[in-house]
């Protein structure tokens, strides 16, 4: 099981599409840095099939004014939760 990290907004970068094509059925996604714009609709629609395994880093949401704006299928997570995700998955792949 792989943890994918995405730090680009889907609104301006095509990398989210490449990443989605490599994700396995159990893989998890954590949105960080500018990636957290993808936690908010309408961009978040891209990740709606990942409910239960799509996360967004709380501190990056907060600094960007996005706290409370996440789509229902995106789970906010603090930095400790980020570490936990890396414990629970075997590998991390960063998309940028």
């Amino acid at each position, binding site marked *: 099981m792989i943890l994918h990290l995405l*730090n680009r*907004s889907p*609104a*301006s970068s095509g990398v989210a599409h490449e990443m989605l094509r490599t994700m396995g059925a159990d893989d998890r996604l954590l949105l960080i*840095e*500018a990636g957290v*714009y993808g936690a*908010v*609709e*309408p*961009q978040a629609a891209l990740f709606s099939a990942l409910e239960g395994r799509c996360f967004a880093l709380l*501190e*990056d949401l*907060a*600094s*960007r*004014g*996005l*706290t409370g704006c996440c789509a229902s299928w995106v789970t906010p997570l603090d*930095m400790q939760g980020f570490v936990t995700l890396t414990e629970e998955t075997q590998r991390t792949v960063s998309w940028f």
Partner: protein
Amino acid sequence: MDDPQTMLVVLRHAPHDSSWLREGLDVALVAAALGQDVTLLFLGDGVEALRSGQQAGPLGQKGSHTTLDMLAMYDIEDIRVDAASLAARGLTVAELDWPVTPVTSDVLPGLFATSASVFNF
């Protein structure tokens, strides 16, 4: 018609993830301090700079919302935002924290053509 001495500073990057937005705003502030007539255009991801509720980063990184608060002090009052970029991000002018003028696509070429200089960040 715009004053032909106007400097247009285009801001296309979101706050916090890179220094582009801050460095673009710094050019605008310095130009204004030197007496230039500055117009700002928020385009693409740059419109995220206008979202309300932004904070400092977790290590104390300043972000750019504090700089935006200083624009009026520098007499930078012509602030445009691309309506299409806002819509693509689910934003409306009403929910932004700063007084900005939305512009539609047909206005953009004229805005560029009538500016004496253009900085694109």
